[in-house]
């Protein structure tokens, strides 16, 4: 929440010396409030004012980074309670918890499995953010050994779970410089844990016991000890309780600008669940309602993939659908006599269709019409994917110069436009394809 021009003015020298390039301090304050000037342009502003202005300019939910490198996780810095109010910016990380009591060889194999899992959806690669290693053994040396394996094999963000500072210290030796999340500072151990996090420049989670006041206290203490990258665990596990607590935390940060709780949140959906299926439902709840880090107790692609799909949905900018560029696409090296299919430039539509065409192995031309990111029927209903638009695209992308026949296949869902399209494209044969992309391979087999 930024300060108003007048509030900023009160913090300036009020000498109107003009060195900042503005006629008065007030004018400069107005520019600052509108983000059209930089504070550094005034040489005379006091250190105290600088600190106040910086604090006020900080986002209500701090941006926290876990890990380093291109697969690091950035969470927090959200600005709204409802995605339709703007958008959600930083999708939560999904971690898998592994314990240091499982046989080391099994642990290694699991880490590799998790690391090697990946999938693409609407052209966007998805992967598991990292693993959370838990010091279930209670032994520092064992923990350090397992963490070292995870660190080396995974080379992605880690969460280190231990209640004993000696274990945490040993583990952090293995991960120096890679900013794992230290989990967790509690009322009992916060001093030692905060010291470790500060020393290793690692973010730290603070765990409360259900009471947000206590959680705020703890976060303030840890901050006082020099660690600012904080993640909150309110210490609640039941589905109703987490929904309420996470909603209240988001509101406190955004509506009350309550700094002591202005941090992203970590959840453990498996701890409040009686089965893997229940864990998935709670993880889905945390994706929609306000988690920044979600630690799962199971790694099952049949669950992780739908959860990541949900995360992609919830974190898509409501103002702009994910789109591909319009044009004539070549799939499997088509020749002039290969079939020509037409569809929209909504990514979901494009990738559904392109995926099936590719899977069929049949060389094919795919004409992508600029439907402004709308699906077939939505585009049709909005006049962005009609006969006229399709005919225009045929010309615009020089289709006739690339193919030797005059046959175009339209999606089955818009069968009703085939007559109009034949009028728009004289001499062409308009063919109605199947309604669902799944049926395209079978259709292409019979195309001639």
């Amino acid at each position, binding site marked *: 929440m930024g300060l108003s021009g007048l509030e900023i003015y009160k913090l300036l020298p009020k000498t109107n010396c003009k060195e900042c390039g503005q006629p008065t301090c007030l004018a400069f304050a107005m520019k600052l409030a509108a983000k059209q000037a930089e504070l550094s342009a005034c040489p005379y502003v006091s250190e105290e004012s600088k600190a106040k202005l910086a604090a006020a300019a900080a986002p209500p939910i701090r941006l926290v980074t876990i890990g380093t490198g291109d697969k690091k996780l950035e969470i927090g810095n959200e600005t709204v309670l*409802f*995605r*339709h109010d703007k958008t959600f910016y930083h999708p939560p990380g999904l971690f898998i918890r592994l314990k240091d009591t499982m046989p080391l060889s099994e642990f290694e194999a699991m880490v590799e499995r998790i690391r090697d*899992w*990946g*999938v693409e*959806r609407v052209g966007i690669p998805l992967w598991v953010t990292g693993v959370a290693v838990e010091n279930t053994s209670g032994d520092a040396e064992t923990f350090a050994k397992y963490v070292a394996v995870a660190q080396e094999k995974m080379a992605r963000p880690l969460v280190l779970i231990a209640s004993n500072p000696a274990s945490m210290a040993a583990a952090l030796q293995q991960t120096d410089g890679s900013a794992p999340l230290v989990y967790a500072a509690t009322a009992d151990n916060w001093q030692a844990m905060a010291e470790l996090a500060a020393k290793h420049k690692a973010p730290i989670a603070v765990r409360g016991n259900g*009471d*947000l*006041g*206590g959680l*705020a*206290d703890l976060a*303030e203490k840890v901050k006082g000890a020099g660690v600012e990258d904080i993640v909150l665990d309110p210490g609640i596990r*039941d*589905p*109703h309780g987490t*929904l*309420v607590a996470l*909603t*209240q935390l988001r*509101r*406190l940060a955004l*509506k*009350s600008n*309550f700094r*002591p*709780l202005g941090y992203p949140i970590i959840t453990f959906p498996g701890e409040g669940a009686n089965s893997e*299926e*229940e864990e*998935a*439902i709670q993880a*889905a*709840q945390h994706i*929609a*309602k306000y988690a920044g880090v979600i630690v799962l107790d199971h790694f*099952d*692609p*049949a*669950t*992780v*993939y*739908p*959860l990541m*799909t*949900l995360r*992609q*949905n*919830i974190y*898509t900018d*409501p103002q702009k659908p994910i789109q591909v560029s319009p044009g004539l696409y070549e799939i499997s090296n088509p020749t002039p006599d290969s079939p020509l299919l037409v569809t929209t430039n909504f990514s*979901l539509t494009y990738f*559904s269709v392109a995926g099936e065409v590719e*899977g069929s192995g049949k060389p094919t031309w795919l004409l992508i019409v600029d439907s402004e990111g709308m*699906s077939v029927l939505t585009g049709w*209903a909005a006049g962005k994917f009609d006969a006229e638009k399709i005919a225009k695209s045929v010309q615009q992308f020089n289709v006739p110069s690339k193919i030797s026949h005059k046959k175009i296949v339209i999606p089955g869902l818009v069968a009703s436009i085939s007559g109009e399209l034949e009028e728009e494209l004289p001499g062409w044969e308009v063919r109605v394809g199947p309604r*669902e*992309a*799944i049926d395209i*391979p079978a259709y292409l087999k019979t195309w001639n």
Partner: protein
Amino acid sequence: MPMAVEIPKEKWTGKVREVKLGATAAEGGTRQKTVTVGGESTLPFLTFEGDMPNPPAIAVEVQDRYPSDWSAVLKAAWGDVLNDPAAWAKKAEEYGADIVALKLQSAHPEAGNTDAAHAAATVKAVLAATGLPLIVYGPGQAEKDNEVLVAAAEAAKGERIALGNCEDKNYRTIVAAALAHGHLVVAKTPIDVNLAKQLNILISDMRLDLDRILMDPTTGALGYGLEYTYSVMERLRLAALTGDSMTQQPMICTVGEEAWRAKESKVNEGVPAAWGDWERRSKNWEVLTASTLIQAGADIVVLRHPESIQLVKQAISQWMAR
């Protein structure tokens, strides 16, 4: 002394209408139980600042012909009952359904083109087989919808069933049938706050009481438009809570139909191994679509898989717990 934290609370001025489905013998029907949905004066499950008197309900889809186009996962889960809507409805009740959503699919011109008499007989058979309230859907083709829904309304006189879908193009006929026989309607519009409001206005202008309207904002499945449905539902619910009368209808989502159309649930051939086990993945697809839309304000979810019923029910009871 821990720091004092003042929780920001919303003071909502509006509330969702309560809508009751089904009528018992005492109320002129034959249902063993009725289901009331709606009544919220707060966002889903946020009972620290308002009430949520009724938990979201689960309707189970039953069709009046063998659903040959359904995923093999669903066919295997239900078995033989898929050939008989009455047996199917009974089974759904055993699995824990609150409501039976009977779809008269066989009336579709491409699926048998059965007539009004057939529809009436099916509705009667299903009413006899189960004590649950009913929602009856036409096949989704305007002319046939009118034909069979009018017949269904007559056959279920006094049972307070819901007739769907009532859309801008056919609402007059459906609303008239509901008025004549004491039923409810499902008002469906394509993911748009204003269209939803408008249809509610048109329907109430025909003098159907507002406590007889459910609204269907149109469901996009997980990965297939869920985000649009989710946000439009949040907006509708916020409008309801801030006092916009024509958005205060309980919401119903046809989750099963949409989720089981997704490639991820429908087939297992030619899909990446990274998608995981087909059966578990497909159930997750339905369950997570349902649970997420319930978080956005769904009051009824229509489901297809028997295990989804149990799982979503369990989740609802955990969210309702104080």
